[in-house]
């Protein structure tokens, strides 16, 4: 059935990520996130900032479907995550790239194999991905380490493999948890330029970081988490926001 809405209205009404009064607690524990509300439009670039323990990683977990909200409504790609079947969840996750804070590389696989993993999981043929993966590793500066195993690499190199793995499938949404935590400022800036390039290709990006000096070098809006709530700001972090209701970005 054709959609009668003009394209501009469709674009406004549809958010890639939409959280409404989302609460998260682990088991019977206290609320880790409280009444979080925001939305991300397709193709946007946001930093997720906040002090340690504010719930940045938990919010990302909700977004990459590692857990479900305790209450409230979380929508991803227009789907309510509470109603997703197991199979649908897997398919949705393929559209999301994640850079984990602890990298989560597989030690028994080479850098090349680690980066190719999402493509393998997605059912792509081996002969079609080899060159692409090798080029991506070269792009993150690891052309000479394609056959190296993660334990033999430095923290910074492992982090770049994790980033390459997150972007290899050209995800619609890229979530990065402290992606510059183990690299010096020069490489951190280079990695952020890399994320910007990806963003220009249409990928929506959320980068959780506590590195405010890095955030201040870019002009992307900031989602700021404090005591479990989230607030949005247009630019670099300017101060702590109060806990409680968040607002739309």
């Amino acid at each position, binding site marked *: 059935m054709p959609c009668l809405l003009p394209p501009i209205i469709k674009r406004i009404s549809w958010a890639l990520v939409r959280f409404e009064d989302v609460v998260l607690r682990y088991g019977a524990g206290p609320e880790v996130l409280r009444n979080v509300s925001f939305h991300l439009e397709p193709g946007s670039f946001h930093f997720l900032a906040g002090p340690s323990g504010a719930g940045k990683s938990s919010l990302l977990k909700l977004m990459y479907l590692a857990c479900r909200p305790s209450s409230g409504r979380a929508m991803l790609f227009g789907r309510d995550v509470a109603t997703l079947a197991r*199979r649908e969840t897997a398919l949705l996750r393929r559209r999301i790239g994640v850079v984990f804070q602890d990298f989560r590389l*597989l030690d028994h696989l080479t850098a090349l194999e680690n980066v190719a993993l999402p493509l393998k*999981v997605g059912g792509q043929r*081996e002969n079609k991905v*080899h060159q692409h993966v090798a080029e991506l590793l070269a792009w993150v500066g690891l052309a000479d380490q394609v056959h190296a195993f993660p334990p033999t690499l430095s923290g910074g190199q492992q982090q770049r493999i994790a980033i390459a793995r997150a972007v290899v499938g050209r995800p619609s949404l890229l979530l990065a948890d402290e992606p510059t935590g183990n690299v010096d400022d020069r490489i951190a800036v280079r990695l952020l330029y890399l994320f910007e390039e990806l963003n220009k290709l249409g990928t929506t990006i959320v980068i959780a970081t506590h590195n405010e000096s890095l955030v201040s070098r870019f002009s992307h809006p900031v989602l700021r988490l404090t005591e479990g709530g989230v607030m949005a700001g247009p630019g670099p972090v300017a101060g702590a926001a109060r806990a409680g209701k968040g607002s739309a970005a």
Partner: protein
Amino acid sequence: MLFRRGDLPLDRDPTGRFLPWLVALMVYLAALALVCAMVMNKMVERWDTGLSGSITVQIPPKQGDPTEAGAAADASLDAVIEILLATPGVISAEVLDPDEIVRLLEPWLGAGASYGDLPLPELIAVGIDRSAAPDFEELSRRLAQAAPGTILDDHQSWLGQLLDLARTIELVAALVVILVGASAATMVVFATRMGLAIHGRVIELLHLIGAQDSYVAREFEMHSLKLALRGGVFGLALAVITVLLVERLFERMEAALLPDLSLVPGEWALLALLPLVVAGIAMLTARLTVLGTLGRMP
């Protein structure tokens, strides 16, 4: 070769070391049980075919003066044969040669025993028309009247016992094969659950990058298939060596009542299926275990 290596390092698990050996042991036992059943089945078939168209009449030796006893025995023999040949359904009646009797007794008495040294009965092999067999009870009564002490043996009681034994052995063999299958499945369940626990973080990662449960299950099922096949082939090879050795041993003994252990190609093929079946069970069990366990996760 980019996708050749498994995403889960299952080869490093302790289960990879013990599972093939246990499967080998079970396939070995199952193969021997199958061979026993097949040999027993063939033996019963051979005896059944050889004996169902014949009966044996046994006239006891006469006591007393050898000359008189000999004459009485001849008279009894003539009377019995006359009755037998006059009975409808009897095709032939052949008195067994003393040398033949000695040959039949050799397994028990050893070579070189003389017929004249022993009070052996006269044996008559009687050929029977299977489609019109006589009433054995009636015939036995008439023979006993003509020559007191004459016994008619239609082999049915002995064959019946043998068939019972064969069926029991077949049943035990089937039970062993079923137990082997069940044990293999149980071991694979434990090994798979252990693998799921050991590699929980990797499995979580695979899920987070979009792997379906079936993708994870495939890793486990291929691993179980490989281990079970390796163990199964080894166990089968051991069983074949054992059967061949025992067969050689039987040939050397040249004992008439020992079973024939030589297997026909179809029976070898059945044995060769054993590791494949066990590997299939292992593969299916691993798959179901993974899907069941992951399916219960949130």
